[in-house]
């Protein structure tokens, strides 16, 4: 077997621990991820007792070979994109740890937990105020967007 690169080694370790001890409501598609370590699909369930109870979402993680020095590209995919003030209807997520505040000490697991808590703390289901303009004009890669964080409350 060819020697693994540092990013592959780390992704392999993360995958193992995420499959072994996933956070509640989060499951990773292990077969797909182990075939291609740079593209993961993560299934997420809305937390009981929150506005998203009973809903199912799918997250896609894309990694570059600079990971973990470079943040992963994380978007919601599939036909159920959560209606949330920080989630655009094309699946892009406005979350500072995915761009400016990324740190190599974060992981797929901590990103999942942040997104779960972002959804759970939502008080009103609505799209971001600039949704239609953003979705029309944005780059396919959410990391290319210069995010302007609307608020820090959720």
């Amino acid at each position, binding site marked *: 077997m060819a020697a693994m690169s*540092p990013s592959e*080694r*780390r992704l392999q*370790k*993360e995958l193992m621990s995420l499959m072994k001890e996933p956070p509640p409501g989060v499951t990773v598609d292990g077969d797909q991820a182990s075939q291609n370590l740079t593209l993961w699909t993560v299934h997420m369930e809305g937390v009981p007792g929150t506005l998203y109870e009973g809903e199912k979402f799918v997250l896609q993680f894309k990694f570059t070979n600079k990971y973990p*020095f470079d943040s992963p590209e994380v978007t919601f995919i599939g036909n159920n994109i959560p209606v949330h003030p920080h989630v655009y209807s094309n699946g892009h997520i406005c979350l500072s740890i995915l761009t400016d505040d990324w*740190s*190599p*000490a974060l992981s797929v697991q901590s990103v999942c937990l942040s997104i779960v808590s972002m959804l759970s703390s939502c008080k009103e289901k609505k799209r971001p105020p600039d949704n239609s303009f953003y979705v029309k004009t944005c780059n396919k890669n959410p990391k290319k967007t210069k995010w302007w964080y609307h608020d820090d409350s959720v």
Partner: protein
Amino acid sequence: MEELIEAIHLTEQSQDYTSLLENMNTYLSAVLESNKRLTDSVSISLVDKDFLQDIKDVVNSGAVGVYFGQSLRSIKVVIPDDFGLRYHEIFIQYEAPKKLIIRNVHLPNSSKLNSEYRSIHDVIETCSKYINELTRYFDELEHIDQFCSIMEPVNPSFKDDFRRIFFDDRTWLHVEVTPEGLASNVHLVGHSTYWHNKLQSGLLTWDHDKRIVENIMDIFDLGMFPQANSQSKTEGDVEKQTEEPLVCGICLCSELPDAPGIPQPLCQNAICGVHYHRSCLYQWLVACAGSRPPAFGVANGTCPTCLQPIICSEKDN
């Protein structure tokens, strides 16, 4: 040829070198006489007559142990020091007639021994001399290994002329030992004010007539050395049996194939507790600063885990 190989296998098991050598000898002389070209084609595992005689002499002298590797061309000799206290292994490779090299040896600065030797006897003589010069070096390292909990190297040997001694979870003491058995480049890894102050005030009182371990105990007021992994295993904690090695907060690995060293307590924040490989942390801090190499090779920024200020030098010293 097969017969010979079989003979070698047999003798390897029985450790009967004399009969092996005789077999080799007979075979070689026959081949040499009948067809020189054949010897060239199969010479990968063959050796010359002088070398065999050389081995024979060394074995017969009885002073050193001789062991064979995959072929007669790789030999290990085990030589005792003058006092017969320690035994040192020297791996010798036969390159060509009267051309031997030392392939591996568990001694510091082994590049000193990099030269061509005419005979095994030459090798033994040179190494014995070097080993006996290093007596104090061995004494000090053995003493440190005996009393202290060593974090790095992971498997300490006489080849490594430094030790990183466990003080607490966030602090190690780095000590290098010179070939003369003296301490040098003593410094702390980690940023504990407590240990740092002790080192500052005590370093000038270092007494080279005392042993390194005694000096360290005096400077840091230690009655005994703290032991790493001393937390006793609680019952029912069987899954986590073997103490997990410290992993780096960035790459999640312990030892890296392409960079030396293990994760170190580099964050100054006492409650952070995350270790990093120097190379990983340096890479991240430099990337945060726009990939410009920092002045004096020291990068600063914030700890990826606790976001407190952190500094990291490129070189481990």
